[in-house]
């Protein structure tokens, strides 16, 4: 699977494998396909950014701070925990030096047909470095690996430009995202 517009710049994967034979299986599989992401796992690591795919080492309060920093309302951490425990795919980046989450994204769905991406955030102090893209590319990759090809999200108008280069299209075929609102139910048209 090759993402559009990605030009591989890393050396031949097979060479890498020979140079570092002690790498574990997971790492070597990401090495053989390392060119599919804009920033490779190695590059992230070398800059002190650790990729995480489970909530085991995630401090919910730290995550909540990132949510608040980007403008989300502060939500009950216990509820956040429930939400994360019932999320089948998630990815976050931990900054080695602070041991805190600096980027996050998750996707809910039926794990077979559909997935919706929620809570895509990058700590404002770490924005502009490609971390949001890094997290999104990998999340999409994980969903595709599961066979899920209907990947959707709701985008605020100001970040449509972030999602478009990742391959997202707004209102394809005239489909509209709709949200239930108690106010609009009672509103006379």
């Amino acid at each position, binding site marked *: 699977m090759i993402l559009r517009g990605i030009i591989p710049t890393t050396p031949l994967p097979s060479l890498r494998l020979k140079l570092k034979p002690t790498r574990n299986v997971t790492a070597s599989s990401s090495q053989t396909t390392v060119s599919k992401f804009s920033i490779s796992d190695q590059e992230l690591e070398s800059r002190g950014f650790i990729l995480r795919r489970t909530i085991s080492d995630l401090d919910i309060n730290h995550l909540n701070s990132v949510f608040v920093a980007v403008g989300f309302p502060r*939500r009950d951490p216990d*509820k*956040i925990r*429930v*939400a*994360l*425990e*019932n*999320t*089948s795919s998630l990815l976050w980046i931990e900054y080695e030096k602070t041991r805190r989450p600096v980027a996050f994204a*998750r996707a*809910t*769905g*039926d*794990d*077979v*047909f*559909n997935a*919706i991406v*929620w809570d895509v955030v990058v700590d404002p102090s770490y924005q502009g470095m490609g971390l949001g893209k890094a997290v999104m590319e990998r999340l*999409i990759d994980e969903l595709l690996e599961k066979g899920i*090809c*209907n*990947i*959707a*999200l*709701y*985008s*605020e*108008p100001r970040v*449509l430009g972030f*999602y478009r280069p*990742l*391959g*997202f*299209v*707004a*209102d*394809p*075929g*005239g*489909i*509209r*995202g*709709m*949200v*239930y*609102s*108690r106010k*609009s*139910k*009672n509103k*006379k*048209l």
Partner: protein
Amino acid sequence: MLSYNAVASPSRCPIVSFGCQCQSSNQLLFSSNPNYGLSKTSRKLKVSRFKARFWESIRSGFLKNNSTQVMEAPPDLEEEEEEPMPEEFVLIEKTQPDGVIEQIIFSSGGDVNVYELQTLCDKVGWPRRPLSKLAAALKNSYLVATLHSIRKSPGSEGNEQRTLIGMARATSDHAFNATIWDVLVDPSYQGQGLGKALVEKVVRALLQKDIGNISLFADSQVVDFYRNLGFEPDPEGIKGMFWHPKY
């Protein structure tokens, strides 16, 4: 006669398959060909009349010679969360001229036979999906709501015919967000407000579970259908986006 032949492929955009043919008594109910030409006041009137007529039209929605009984009291649409909704209940009951009693049962218990579901999907014209995947999708859904038709012949000693005639499901993170997918009603039962009842009940069930954000993706032809149920397109300019959609 309104018909929209909106067949939404579930793998692409699983919303409503709604080739409805409205009978004259339901014309007001399904005036989802939007009221473009109408003034604001007449539209206002139409909506409030719509609410009042909703259950009336369910009642009269069935064929003329039947005695139809609406089992559920008209809901107070403003206070959806007051009483906990039972998991299964009779939506409509009617007696046919031949004495057969038909009940339409709503259930949110999630007990769906995948073979029946596939038959229903065939009826609405959706492309086939592997049964194992259908089963998994149902299992991984937070809420699966169904409509079944139960037909009892008089004096048949409890021999009843139970058919799946509608379904809607929602995925969720159990805390904040839920998304409704795959809303479908058997074409021979369309035009009677069952789709609306289904979605309305799903929304109510989700609200009762304290899920604050209920979303869905609607084909352009059914945007008004959902608007009438309280859904708003692009709230605050937020756009639904899809990854490399097959359009």
